[in-house]
């Protein structure tokens, strides 16, 4: 019996233009299409594989505004059993430290979790540290950036892949895992799965339910502050030529003129 909590985040679609709010420099969630972060689908897939190989329950855990329900439903339609959704206006503008604390608090709502699976890095903030920070708070091993994972009994083995190469890791449950793009190919939700997801339980909780110090949360509690933020001026298109058989030569001349070759 392995109880797994999967962390899911709703992010602005990377195929749309992403912006910050001018007033407080937080993410402008209205300007872009909101989707479940792609890497989270792989985290859900990995959790489902573990469940299907044995016994257990997969709980989706999401911190985000009300409309993040769409991301949660997507994970449920893939086959997760239930969800905990932390939604609270006090969280608006929370930094990584606060987010990690809230997730740790919310895990208390998942009965006897053995394993937490997350994506290795969200496509919006790209902090890449929440799983590690969560392991720090929970006092459990981190097996992060996994491209391969195996679980035998309570022994977890992971092949971690980063720019440094591959590191083989081993630890006992409970533990926190994060997965990379190479871990698996996530399944598509079936029609049956989509219909079933509508009836699966989603427990919505606020910060007050979690025992997290409200003073650490939101913009006022953040341990880092954005002083300024501005869009970079767009790059202007430069010179363009048609290849009349001398495109390579012309490119070489341009590069030479720029002292690049």
């Amino acid at each position, binding site marked *: 019996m392995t109880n797994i909590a999967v962390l899911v985040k709703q992010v602005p679609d*990377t*195929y*749309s233009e992403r*912006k910050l709010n001018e007033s407080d420099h937080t993410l402008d969630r209205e300007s872009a299409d909101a989707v479940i972060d792609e890497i989270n689908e792989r985290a859900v897939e990995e959790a489902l594989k573990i469940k299907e190989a044995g016994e257990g329950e997969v709980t989706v855990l999401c911190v985000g505004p009300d409309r993040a329900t769409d991301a949660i439903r997507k994970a449920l339609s893939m086959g997760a059993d239930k969800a905990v959704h932390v939604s609270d206006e006090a969280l608006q503008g929370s*930094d*990584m*430290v606060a987010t*990690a604390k809230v997730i740790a608090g919310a895990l208390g709502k998942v009965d006897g979790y053995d394993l937490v699976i997350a994506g290795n890095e969200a*496509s919006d903030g790209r*902090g890449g*540290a929440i*799983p*590690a*920070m969560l*392991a*720090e708070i929970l006092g459990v*091993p*981190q*097996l*992060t950036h996994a491209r391969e994972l195996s679980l035998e009994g309570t022994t977890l083995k*992971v092949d*971690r892949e*980063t*720019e*440094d*190469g591959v*590191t*083989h*890791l*081993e630890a*006992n449950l409970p*533990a926190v895992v994060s997965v990379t*793009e190479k871990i698996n190919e996530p399944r598509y939700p079936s029609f049956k799965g989509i219909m079933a997801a509508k009836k699966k339980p989603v427990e919505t909780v606020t910060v007050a339910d979690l025992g997290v110090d409200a003073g650490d949360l939101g913009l006022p509690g*953040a*341990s*880092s*502050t*954005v*002083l*300024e933020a*501005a*869009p*970079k001026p767009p*790059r202007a*298109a*430069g*010179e*363009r030529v048609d*290849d009349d058989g*001398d*495109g*390579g*030569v*012309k*490119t*070489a001349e*341009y*590069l030479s003129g720029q002292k*690049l*070759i």
Partner: protein
Amino acid sequence: MAEVLVLVDQVDGEVKKSTFELLTAARTLGEASAVVVGTPGTTGKVKDALASYGAAKVYAAESDDAAAYLVTPKVDALAAVAGQASPAAVLVSATAEGKEVAGRLAIRLGGGVLVDAVGVNADGSVDQSIFGGAFSVKAKAAKGTPVVSLRPGAVEAEQADGAAAEETVALPAADAATSAKVTGVEPVVGGDRPELTEASIVVSGGRGVGSAEKFEVVEKLADSLGAAVGASRAAVDSGYYPAQFQVGQTGKTVSPQLYVALGISGAIQHRAGMQTSKTIVAVNKDAEAPIFEIADFGVVGDLFDVAPQLTDEVAKRKG
């Protein structure tokens, strides 16, 4: 002057270039102190290199456990030194591991974590470049010791003389209940080409390359320029090139002096990984390809005509 701690990134006693960049950035904030975490004897091997980039102090946190457990020995070492030195800031490289070390340390120190900075200012604030370079941000820590991860290659390393006075730090024994054990490592086998994120020139191929075999035309141009080879997501998804070379939102972010895009349409997904390149050159058959909107020099034509000709021209000019 307050100390600024720098986590040394080294492999078998060889210090990575990004560490010298950290030491350089640290000197804008205070006195640079290098923290070496490794197996016994590591500090002796790296001390001279750290001194030549201005490390006033070198803290040696050595134990057999240091390399046997993931991430936590580094966090333990930095937390121990921070406890005694009350540093103005802690700097680590914004690598996968560095970002994890920084995040955990911020939890432990109750400080603010500033991720993936591209510049460190004398007032303690940092510059960041987010959404694939679409936004510039300036941020600072609001409480506690700032823990900053600095993007490799963002700051130019400058040499300076440092005393490198050695001090020993006791590392607590690792606990397998709270740390993952490292049972083996397979370091990246570097080919002859430079590493993608460190290269000053990157030549990338996209869907227009058409097949894995034909990627040779991209590689040949890259080799003539001494460049790294990259690939768009479309090329990787089509199986033309391995995923580790993917440039874009879901791959690597590169910011070289010159980026050459061959047969890449320039979807926003790809642009997020390369639009901060200093100069962009694009070759594409489709005159409407969005890559031309951001290219400093574009050629509308067949990459299989243009790239080989350019490869020959580069070779000629090199003599």
